[in-house]
């Protein structure tokens, strides 16, 4: 594998590290299997691309994408909490709806960003040699997000959120308004997914309505694979493992696709991912639900 291909895998790995942190929050912390991220990832990309084309500052456009993702999460949470729709079904409904929304937002299935100013062009003048600039930039972004994320999970609100997922009756008895924390958790999770989509669109130079397909599985692969690879069981360790798992996953997939002897093409990514998730699940002994570990 060439250096450029390797760095490319690291870049995508870091971007999906953000998605993995979001997926960790819903699947692992809140115990809310949320598939909305497939839609909110592309939603983030769509909002960013359209705003950049309209001449918005790329940073502001990225911020708007995050806000849009948060709103998508709030819709899913509201369907679940107010209309009592089963959590998994609520997230699928939002995800499906977002597919149409994304095409409306972009006015078509794709918006190219070639030659446009992106968050990456704004750091080009810093003098870092070309192949390194993107991986270093995404490393910095993911590191900052991770620090804020880890702080949040250890804050009073973060603790209440963790209790909401693990033991809602006990949380309520201790004055935690569990509904609000489910809303908060889903907003943050989908905000992170949209952030990932926004960055990927700016890196690849296009937003596409299909780019969100399989996001949830890639996120899960990172969360479960990371936890299987990193032995630390502390919360800080587990969240770092999400990002690490995402990078390892993308390097692995890149290797598999680049190895000509395997004869795999880009369209084989999904089955490679599905197999990886199954293998990681089998070895981590967590079973199919990807919910909390159930002791025998």
């Amino acid at each position, binding site marked *: 594998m060439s250096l450029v291909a390797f760095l490319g895998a690291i870049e995508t790995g870091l971007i999906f590290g953000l998605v993995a942190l979001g997926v960790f929050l819903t699947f692992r912390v809140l115990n809310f299997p949320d598939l909305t991220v497939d839609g909110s990832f592309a939603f983030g990309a769509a909002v960013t691309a359209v705003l950049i084309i309209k001449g918005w500052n790329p940073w502001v456009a990225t911020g708007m994408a995050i806000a849009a993702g948060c709103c998508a999460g709030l819709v899913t949470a509201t369907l679940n909490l107010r209309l009592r729709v089963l959590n998994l079904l609520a997230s699928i409904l939002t995800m499906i709806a977002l597919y149409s929304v994304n095409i409306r937002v972009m006015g078509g299935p794709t918006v190219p960003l070639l030659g446009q100013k992106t968050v990456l062009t704004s750091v080009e003048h810093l003098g870092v040699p070309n192949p390194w600039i993107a991986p270093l930039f995404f490393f910095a972004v993911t590191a900052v997000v991770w620090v804020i994320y880890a*702080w*949040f999970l*250890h*804050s*009073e*609100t*973060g*603790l*209440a959120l*963790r*209790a909401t997922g*693990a*033991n809602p*009756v*006990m*949380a*309520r*008895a*201790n*004055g*935690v*308004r*569990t509904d609000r924390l489910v809303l908060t958790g889903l907003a943050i999770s989908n905000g992170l997914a949209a952030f990932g989509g926004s960055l990927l669109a700016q890196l690849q130079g296009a937003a596409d309505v299909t780019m969100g397909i399989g996001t949830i599985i890639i996120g899960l692969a990172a969360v479960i694979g990371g936890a299987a690879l990193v032995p630390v069981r502390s919360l800080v360790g587990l969240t770092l493992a999400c990002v690490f798992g995402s990078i390892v996953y993308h390097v692995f997939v890149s290797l598999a696709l680049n190895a000509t002897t395997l004869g795999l093409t880009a369209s084989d990514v999904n089955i490679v991912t599905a197999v990886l998730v199954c293998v990681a699940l089998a070895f981590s002994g967590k079973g199919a639900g990807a919910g*909390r570990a159930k002791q025998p």
Partner: protein
Amino acid sequence: MIRVDGVSVVFNAGTAMENRVLSELSIEIPSGQFVTVIGSNGAGKSTLLNVIAGELPVASGRVLIADEDVTALPAPARSALVARVFQDPRAGTCETLTVEENLALAASRGRPRGLGLALNAGRRQRFRAALERLGLGLEDRLGDPIGLLSGGQRQATSLLMASIEPMQILLLDEHVAALDPRTAGFVLELTRRVIEEQKLTALMVTHSMRHALALGDRTLMLHEGRIVLDVTGEERRGMTVADLIARFRAQHGEELDSDSLLLA
């Protein structure tokens, strides 16, 4: 002071399964009183606790805590007034969180939660000192997930969590029923000590007539959603389980149907 004023609770209202669990029940608990509640299965003991905690809506009647009408408030909104220890040690603590995180969660009961760190040196010191007084060696296990503790240790920690912040009433829902007799004795003694030291108002549901008479200042017996016996003061002092059963029979004209009440 706690006032439950003509409260009725009906499950499955308007269906063939309709079940009146509490029937225009009224009690007044003055501040500082420790009330024990007994009754057979389905008598409405846990329902009464859930009504005071705000986990169950009432069909009619009012609940007042410290002169505030809380009937319409959900459980989290009452948490500044009401603290609870559950029957199942796993229900009252959060096993994926550490001992100190569980305590931190309880220490913010009834207060808005912000983005500041949930744990700091001051809080850890406070928790360590509180755990030391349990005499279980838990002060050295602040960072352990609480799931690693035994049932008795978790129940003792639950009691500490419930009493760590001031409240108007402490609700104990058969909180020693899931423990072995020796551990149950320890947790009961701890309960008595905490309630006495902090002069708490408490309502303890129990399956054991013996416990009901051994602890507290007043004993209620519930039967079919009504209070059928309410003893306190001189009358209660020196009362035995046999006296209690005799009183029930005399007042109610029927035999107690629950073996568990007699055997406990």
